[in-house]
C-alpha cells in the first residue's frame, strides 16, 4: 500500500496584530468620547475628568459622574510629578507584547490625589523606594497613539 497523499491547505498567513491583542486603546473621537485624554497627552498633559457639579476628580476618566450622574465633566491637569506608592518588576510570566521589555518595573503612583498604575521607566526594582519622586513620561506608538508612563528622574 502506498502512503496516502493529502492536498496541502493554507493555515495562516501573517496578520497584523488583531484588535483584541492590542493593549492600546483606540483613542480618537471616532472610537471614544474621552478622546481629549489622548489629545491632552499629545500636548504633554496628563489629565482626567472632574465632575463640575460635585467636584470629584475621577479616575479613569469617564463621561458620566458615578456619584451624581452628571455628564458635565471638565478636564483637569494632574501635574507631571508623582510619588511612588508601590512597585514591582516583571521578571517572569510577561504577557505577549511585553515579553521583549522584561524585566520592567510597574508601580502605583500617587498623583493629583489619585492612585494610578503605570510602567516605571529608567528604574530597577532594587533601586526603587517608597515615596520616590517620579516624572511623567509620555510615549507615542508608531501609529501615533499616545500613552503615559513615569520615570525616575
Amino acid at each position, binding site marked *: 500500500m502506498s502512503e496516502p497523499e493529502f492536498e496541502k491547505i493554507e493555515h495562516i498567513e501573517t496578520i497584523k496584530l488583531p484588535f483584541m491583542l492590542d*493593549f492600546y486603546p483606540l483613542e480618537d473621537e471616532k472610537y471614544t468620547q474621552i478622546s481629549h485624554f489622548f489629545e491632552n497627552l499629545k500636548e504633554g498633559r496628563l489629565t482626567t475628568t472632574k465632575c463640575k457639579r460635585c467636584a470629584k476628580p475621577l*479616575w479613569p476618566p469617564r463621561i458620566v459622574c458615578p456619584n451624581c450622574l452628571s455628564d458635565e465633566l471638565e478636564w483637569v491637569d494632574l501635574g507631571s510629578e508623582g510619588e511612588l506608592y*508601590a*512597585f*514591582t518588576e516583571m521578571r517572569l*510570566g*510577561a504577557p*505577549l507584547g511585553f515579553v521583549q521589555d522584561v524585566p520592567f518595573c*510597574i508601580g*502605583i503612583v500617587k498623583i493629583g490625589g489619585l492612585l494610578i498604575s503605570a510602567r516605571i521607566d529608567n528604574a530597577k526594582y532594587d533601586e526603587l523606594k517608597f515615596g520616590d519622586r517620579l516624572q511623567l513620561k509620555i510615549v507615542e506608538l508608531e501609529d501615533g497613539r499616545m500613552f503615559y508612563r513615569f520615570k525616575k528622574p
Partner: protein
Amino acid sequence: MRKVAIVGGGATKCGKRKASWRDLVQEAGKAMFESLGNLSPKDVDSLIVGAAQPERFVFQAHVAPMVAEYLGVTPRKVIARTELMCASGQAAIRYAWACVATGLADVAVAFGVEKMFMPDMAEAQTNMTCVLDRKWDGINGLSAPPFFAMTAQRHMHEYGTTREQMALVSVKNHHYSSMNPLAQFQKEITVEDVLKSLVVTPPLNLFDCSGITDGAAGMILVPAEDAKKYTDAPMYIIGSGQASIGNAINNLASLTEWVPLKIAAKEALKFAKITLDDIDIAELHDCFTISEIIEYEAFGWCEKGEGGKFIEEGQSHIGGKVAVNPRGGLLGCGHPLGATAILQAMDILQQFKGEVPKGRLVSDAEIAVAHNLSGPANVHSIMVYSR
C-alpha cells in the same frame, strides 16, 4: 426559600493535562454522575457553567450548551454560563443554589471548567491582563502577579509581614496537597524551596503563586427534602455573602485591607447564623501566599496585620484555630479558574464524609466556608456549607 443540598459531584485531576477543554468537561461529567448511583443526566433540569475566559483560552463562546451536550444533559428550566473571573465557579454555585432555593429548578448542576495551558504561555498571560481594567491597568503589564506583588510589598511595609511568613502558607498548602490525588502539585516543599524558587514579580517567587491549571468539576444541587433520595451524606448550603468595591486601582478600598471581604464575611456569617468559632474548615482563595494572610485578618481570625504571625503560630493548620485549605489550596491544587470553587466544595463534601486521607482530615467537621476573590481583590465571594 427552600434549603438546598449538594448530593454529589466529581472532578478531573488538575494540572498541565494532555486533554482538551472538551475532554475535561467529559471527564468531570462522568465522575459527577458516577458519584451517584441513581441520578441520570436526563434528570437534570438546570445547568450553570462557571467559565472565566473560554473565548480567550480555547476560542469558544456559548459554552453552557456545549457542556450540556457533552454531559448528555437537556436543561428545561435554566441554562447559563457565569463569569466572575477567579470566582466564576462560585458564581455558578450561587446561581444554581438560588435556582433550586426559589423553586425555579429541582435538579441543578453547578459546573466549572478552564483549560489554561496554551502552546504559547505568553498568550495565556495576556488573557490575565484583561482581568484588571485593560485600558488603564492591564496596559501597564499589570496582570495578577504584579498586582499581588505590590499588595504583598505594602503589607510587608505597613505591618512587618515577612517573606518567610508568606512562604509558610505555601509550605502548609503543599503539605496538604501532597495528600490530594486531584492536586496539580503533590510534592511537599520547604520555606527554603519557596524563597529559592524563581522570582516572578518581587517580592513574589514562583511558589508564592498558584499555577496555570487545566481542570473541570461539577456537582449536583437539589432541594434538601429530596437529598436523601440520592445520598446518606448530603452537604447543605447555609449561607452566602458577596461584596464588590471599585475596580481600577484608584478605586479599590485599600490594597492591604480587603474591605469587601470583611463585608462579605460578616454577611455570610449572619446569613448562616453562625460565628467565626463555628467554622471548622475554611477553603480560602490563596491565589498568592499574601492573599491567605490578608484573608485571616479580614475574616477576623486574627487582628489586622497579624496574619503573618497567625500562620507562623500554626493557627491555620489542622488542629489550630481554624483549618485553612486542608484541600491544598490553589497553591497546591492549582487554579483552573472556573472550576476552582466547585473543587473547593467537592473537597468539603468529602471532608464531611470523612473520605479524605487522614493527614488532611479535619475530624468531625460540621461547618465550612469556601471563599474566592476575583480581579484585584475587589470582589469577594463566600459560601457557607454544613454537614
